[in-house]
C-alpha cells in the first residue's frame, strides 16, 4: 500500500535515469543516512541502548563499514567485471602498508644510482588516498594476466598476489620501518588539524569514506565504464567484437577495485586495528571478502553491505549464543562450532538463493509493490 510508484510521473530524462527512481526508496535512503550520520552518534554519545558501551560501535559498526567498503571494491571486480580474485587480502595489505609508509615518511635508498627517494611524512588523508593509488598500481600489474587467463585459473593466479605480498610484508623490514616484532602501530589520525580519537569520531570518518565511495561506485557501474565491465563479464568475446577493448575494461576494473580495497585496507589498519601484523590481511581475509560478495549478491552494491553484515555478525552471534543460553562449552568447541555452522549456512544459502541477498531484497520489493494483492 505504502510502497507504490503510482502517480510519480517523470518529466525529464534525468529523472528517468535516477539511481532511486521511486520516491519511497529515496526517502528510505535519506532516513538511513540520517540514522547513520546523526542517530548512531547521538545514541552513542548519550549511551542509550544498543550503544550503551563502546563495544557495539568499535567491534561491530566500524569493521562492518570498512569491510563493506572492501566488499564493494571486490564486487566491482567480481560482480561487475566477472574476474574472480582471491587476492583481495593482499590489496588491503598494500593499502595499509603504503599508507603507513606515506604517513611516517618514505626513505628509499637507491644505492645503484647513488641517490635516494625521500618523502617527508604526509598527513593521514593524502596518505590513505596514496595508499589506494599504490594498491591500484599493483592491481593493474596483477590484472595483466587476466587478459589471457580466465575463470578459476585466474582465481588461482590471484592467489600468487596473496602469498607473495604476505611474504613481502613479513620479510622486507623496510615496510615495517624495521620494528623488531614485525607489527606496526598507526600514527594518530589527524585530518585538517582535527584528531580522530574517540570511537564516535572514528565511526563518522569511516562512514564518510564509505558513503562517498558507495556513491562513486554506484554511479560508475551505471555509466559507460560499468556497462563495458558487464559486457565483458557476460561474454568477453562478444564484447570484444562489439568494440569494447578488453585491455581497457579489465584493467580499469582491476585498478578501481584495488583502489577501493586498498583504501578499505588502510582504514582497517588505521581506524579499526590501530596496530597490526601481516596476519591481519592473510588469505582468510580474502575468503571472508569473497563470501561477503557471494552471499550478498554478485553485481550489487547494496548486496555488498548485506553480505558484509551477515558474514561479520554471524560468528559473533554464534559465539555469544551458547553463553546467552547458559550452555557450558569450551572455547575450542565454540570455535569449531562456529566453523561448522558458518560453512553449513553458506552451503544452505547458496542452495536456496545462489544470487545472494540482493536477489532476496529485490524479490521482497516486488512483492511489497503488489501487496496486499497477489498480482
Amino acid at each position: 500500500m505504502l510502497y507504490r510508484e503510482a502517480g510519480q510521473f517523470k518529466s525529464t530524462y534525468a529523472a528517468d535515469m535516477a539511481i532511486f527512481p521511486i520516491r519511497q526508496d529515496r526517502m528510505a535512503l535519506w532516513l538511513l543516512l540520517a540514522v547513520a550520520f546523526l542517530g548512531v552518534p547521538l545514541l552513542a554519545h548519550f549511551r542509550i541502548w544498543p550503544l550503551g558501551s563502546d563495544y557495539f560501535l568499535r567491534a561491530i559498526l566500524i569493521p562492518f563499514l570498512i569491510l563493506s567498503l572492501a566488499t564493494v571494491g571486490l564486487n566491482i571486480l567480481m560482480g561487475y567485471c566477472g574476474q574472480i580474485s582471491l587476492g583481495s587480502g593482499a590489496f588491503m595489505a598494500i593499502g595499509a602498508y603504503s599508507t603507513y609508509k606515506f604517513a611516517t615518511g618514505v626513505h628509499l635508498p637507491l644505492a645503484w644510482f647513488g641517490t635516494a627517494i625521500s618523502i617527508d611524512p604526509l598527513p593521514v588523508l593524502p596518505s590513505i588516498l596514496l595508499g589506494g593509488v599504490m594498491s591500484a598500481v599493483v592491481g593493474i600489474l596483477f590484472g595483466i594476466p587476466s587478459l589471457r587467463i580466465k575463470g578459476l585459473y585466474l582465481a588461482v593466479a590471484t592467489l600468487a598476489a596473496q602469498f607473495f605480498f604476505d611474504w613481502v610484508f613479513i620479510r622486507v623490514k623496510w615496510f615495517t620501518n624495521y620494528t623488531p616484532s614485525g607489527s606496526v602501530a598507526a600514527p594518530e589520525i589527524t585530518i585538517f588539524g582535527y584528531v580522530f580519537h574517540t570511537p564516535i569520531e572514528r565511526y563518522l570518518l569511516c562512514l564518510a569514506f564509505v558513503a562517498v565511495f558507495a556513491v562513486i561506485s554506484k554511479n560508475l557501474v551505471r555509466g559507460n565504464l560499468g556497462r563495458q565491465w558487464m559486457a565483458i563479464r557476460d561474454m568477453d568475446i562478444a564484447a570484444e567484437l562489439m568494440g569494447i577493448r578488453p585491455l581497457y575494461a579489465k584493467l580499469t576494473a582491476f585498478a578501481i577495485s584495488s583502489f577501493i580495497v586498498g583504501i578499505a585496507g588502510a582504514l582497517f589498519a588505521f581506524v579499526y586495528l590501530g596496530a597490526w601484523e601481516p596476519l591481519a590481511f592473510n588469505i582468510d581475509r580474502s575468503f571472508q571478502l569473497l563470501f561477503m560478495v557471494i552471499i550478498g549478491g554478485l553485481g550489487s552494491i547494496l548486496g555488498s553491505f548485506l553480505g558484509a553484515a551477515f558474514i561479520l555478525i554471524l560468528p559473533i552471534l554464534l559465539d555469544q549464543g551458547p553463553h546467552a543460553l547458559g550452555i557450558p562449552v569450551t572455547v575450542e568447541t565454540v570455535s569449531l562450532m562456529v566453523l561448522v555452522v558458518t560453512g553449513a549456512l553458506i552451503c544452505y544459502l547458496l542452495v536456496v538463493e545462489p544470487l545472494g541477498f540482493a536477489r532476496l531484497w529485490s524479490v521482497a520489493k516486488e512483492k511489497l509493490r503488489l501487496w496486499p494483492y497477489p498480482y
Partner: protein
Amino acid sequence: MILFGQVLEVLIGGLLSGVLYSLVALGFVLIFKASGVFNFAQGAMVLLAGLALVRSLDFLAARGIPVWAAVMLGLLFAAVIMAITAWLVERFVLGPLVNQDGLTLFMSTIGATFVLEGASQMIFGSDVYPLRLFPNDAWFLFESVFPGGILVNKLDVWGGLIAGALVAGLAVFFQRTKTGRALRAVADDHAAAQSVGIPISWIWFVVWLAAGLVALVAATVWGTKLGVQFSITFLALKALPVLIIGGFTSVPGAIVGGLIVGAGEKLAEVYLGPHIGGGIEYWFAYVLALAVLLVRPQGLFGERLIERI
C-alpha cells in the same frame, strides 16, 4: 663432483616431495574432470581421512588387536567415513546445485570445507596424532659415486610408488570403464549427460568417493610425514599451483605439475632463497604457476578451450 651431488640431492628431494603434492592434486583433478566442480574441500578431506584412520588405529591398538588387522580395519573405517562424506556432500550440497555456474559450486565447496574441518576435529579431536605406516628414515644412494652419497627419504620413495600406482589405476578407470566414460560426459555438460540417461547423483557420489579414497591415500603418506593435524588442510593451497601448471583436467598433468613445483621450490629455496631473504617456498610455486599460465593459459596438459559466441 661434490657440487653436482648436492644439486642432485636437492633435485631428487624436490621431485619426490613434488609427487606428494601430486597426491593431493589428484583428488582435485578427479572431481574437476568428472563434475566440473573445483573442489576446495580436498585438503579438509585429507584431514578427515587422516583423523578417522589414526584415531581408529589408536582405538584398535589399545584393544590389543594385531597391527596388520588394526591397519586393515582402520583403513576400512576411514573408507566408510569417506563414503558417508561423499554421500552427504552429494545429497545436501551438490545435488541441489546441479546446473549452477562454476563459481557458485566452488563457493559451496569452500562452505563444505569449513563444515568438514570443524566436524572432523569435533568428532576425532584436534591434537597432533603421529601416524606410523611407512618407514620415515633417511636412505643413502650412490655412495660410491658421490662422497657422502645422496640422502633420500624412504617415505618420499613410498609416496612416489603409491602415486604411480594410483595414476595407472585412475587412467584405466577413466578410459576403459563404463562409469569412467559417464564421468567424462557429466564433466562436459550436466544437462546433456542427464538427458541421455546418465544418473548424475550416482556419478557424483562415485566421484566424491574416489576423491575421498585418494584423500585417504594422501593422508597415509602426509600423516606419516607431518603427523595428522589441522595444518594438513593447507595442502590444498599447496596443491593449487600444481594443478594449474598441469592443467585442471589432466591426471598425468597433476603428476608432472607436482614434479615441476617440487623441484622448482626446493632448488629456489636452496639456491635463490638466501639471496632474497628466505622462506620463498611460501609463494614460489604460485609465481611459477603464473608464469606457466601466461604461456599456456590452460596449463601444460589441460584441454584447450574453444570459445564460441
